C-alpha cells in the first residue's frame, strides 16, 4: 500500500525542499521505491537541490496537461536506486495544477511507488493546497521561531479541515520536523526550544535537524544532505527516515556544546 506524504510548512525558507529531497533520498536508500514531486510550479527548486536540473525535459504540468507521459517526465536519480523526481514547471504558475490532474498523476504513481513525497510551496494558496490535498501523512517543517510555528499551526488546521482525508472523515497523520535548530541559541534564549514548539503545536516530533553549514553546501552542490554521512544534519535526516519507518531512535544534536563534543568524537 503506497503512501502519499506532504512536506509542508506555511512559511517559506524553512527547509521544505531540503527536507523533501533528504527524506525521499533516505526512503529510497532504505530500499523503498520513492517518487518526489515538486509542487512549487513557477519557482522550481527541487531539481536544483537534487542536482538534476540539467536533465529536466518534461515536467509535472506537462503530465497533467497530457503533453507527456509520467514515464517521460520522471527523472531517475543516478546516485540512489529507487528514487525518482517529478520536477515542477518553471514557466507556468500554480493555476496549472488542477485537482483532477494532480489526482490522476498521484494515482498513477501509487501503482508503482511505495512512497510519494509531495514538496509543497510556501503559503496557503493553490500550490500548497494541492500538495497537501491527497496526503495520507504530513511532515510539518518548522524553524524555532514564533512566526514559523504560527504558520505551521495554520497549515495543520488546513490539513485537517480541507484535505481529501478530512473530507472523507479521516485524519492525516502529522509529524513535526524542526529544522535549523541551534542548541546554543536556544540556551541563550534567542530561539524557541524544542519542547516549547512541541507544546504549542502538540504534534508528535519526528526529528530535529541542527543548523549546519553542510545543508547549504549540499544544496549548492545538488546532493541531498542525507547523503553526507559525516554531517550532523545528514545523520539527523537519517534518524528521521528511520523513525518514519517505525524504528525507535533517540534524538541527537539537541543539546549544547559538551554533549555535542561527545557526539562529534563519536561520529565525527
Amino acid at each position, binding site marked *: 500500500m503506497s503512501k502519499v506524504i506532504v512536506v509542508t510548512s506555511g512559511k517559506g525558507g524553512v527547509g521544505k525542499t531540503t527536507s523533501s529531497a533528504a527524506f525521499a533520498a533516505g526512503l529510497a536508500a532504505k530500499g523503498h521505491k520513492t517518487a518526489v514531486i515538486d509542487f512549487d510550479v513557477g519557482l522550481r527548486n527541487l531539481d536544483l537541490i537534487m542536482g538534476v536540473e540539467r536533465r529536466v525535459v518534461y515536467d509535472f504540468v506537462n503530465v497533467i496537461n497530457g503533453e507527456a507521459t509520467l514515464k517521460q517526465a520522471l527523472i531517475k536519480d543516478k546516485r540512489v536506486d529507487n528514487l525518482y523526481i517529478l520536477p515542477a514547471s518553471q514557466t507556468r504558475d500554480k493555476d496549472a495544477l488542477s485537482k483532477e490532474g494532480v489526482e490522476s498523476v498521484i494515482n498513477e504513481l501509487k501503482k508503482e511507488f511505495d512512497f510519494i513525497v509531495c514538496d509543497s510551496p510556501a503559503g496557503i494558496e493553490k500550490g500548497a493546497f494541492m500538495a497537501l490535498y491527497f496526503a495520507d501523512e504530513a511532515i510539518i517543517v518548522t524553524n524555532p521561531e514564533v512566526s514559523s510555528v*504560527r504558520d505551521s*499551526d*495554520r497549515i*495543520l*488546521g*488546513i490539513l*485537517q*479541515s480541507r484535505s481529501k482525508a478530512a473530507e472523507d472523515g479521516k*485524519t492525516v497523520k502529522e509529524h513535526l520536523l524542526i529544522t535549523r535548530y541551534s542548541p546554543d541559541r536556544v540556551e541563550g534564549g534567542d530561539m524557541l526550544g524544542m519542547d516549547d514548539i512541541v507544546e*504549542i503545536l*502538540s504534534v508528535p516530533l519526528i526529528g530535529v535537524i541542527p543548523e549546519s553549514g553542510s545543508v547549504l553546501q549540499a544544496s549548492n552542490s545538488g546532493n541531498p544532505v542525507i547523503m553526507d554521512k559525516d554531517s550532523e544534519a545528514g545523520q539527523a535526516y537519517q534518524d528521521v527516515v528511520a523513525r518514519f519507518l517505525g524504528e525507535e531512535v533517540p534524538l541527537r544534536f539537541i543539546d549544547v556544546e559538551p554533549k555535542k563534543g561527545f557526539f562529534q568524537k563519536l561520529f565525527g
Partner: protein
Amino acid sequence: MKLKGEMSMLNVLHVQELDLEKLCAELEQKRDEAPQFFMKSPIIVDCADLGDAAEQLDFSLLRQKLLELGFIPVGIRNNPVEMNARLVDAGWAIMRESRPSTASTEVSGDVSAETNQQAEVAQQDEPQAAPQVAPVGIKSLTIDRPVRSGQQVYAADADMTVLAQTSAGSEIMADGSIHVYGPLRGRVLAGARGNEQARIFCQSLQAELIAIAGRYQLLDESDTELKGKPAMIRLDGEKLIIEPLAH
C-alpha cells in the same frame, strides 16, 4: 469554477408585526448585544407568522433598513405566493416554496388545509431550524481535535466543549458556555448571541481575547493573575470577571 449546494448557518428573522419602525428598533437592540457576531451577517426573513398580512409590508424598505442595520438580507421564506414577483423585483431571493394563499381556499376546507400546511412547514423546518427550537444549553458541540490558527468553530444555540487545545489565531464561539480542557490560546466568545448567563471555563487560560455576550476584553489588558491557570470567566453587569476555577 465550482458551484455547489451547501447548508450554511443563517439567522432567521421571524416577522410578527407590520410596524417596521418597531421591528427595526427591536432588531437594533438585539444587534447591539453582540455587534461582532451580527455585523455583516446574512439574514433570512420568515413571514410565516404574518400570513397574508405580509402583503401589506414594504419589503424594499425592510431590505433597506436591514442593510442600514449592518445585516446582509439574503432571502424570504413563507411569503404568500402572489408576492413572489414583487419580492424578486425588490432584490429578495425566495428561499422556500411559498404557501398558497388561504384566501382562495374554500371556507369548509380551510381548517384542515391550514393544519396540513402547518405540519408540512414544521417538518421542512426541522433540519434547518431545529437549533432555534431547542432551548439554549441543551445541545452541546464537542471538539476532540486542536482548533488551529485561522480556524473558526461556532456552536449555534449550544454549549461547546473542546477536549484539545485552541491555538493562537483561532476563534471559538458558542451561543452557550464554552469549556476548554487543553490550553486556551486563541479568541473565545461565549454567549455569542447575547446570552449573558454564558460562561467560559478553561484549564489553562492563555487566550488572546475573551468575550461574553458581546463584552470583550484582551487578556493582556486585564490584570488577572490567572494566566496559564484554570479559570472561569463570567459576566457581572458590564464587566467580565475572571475567577479561579479550582477552590
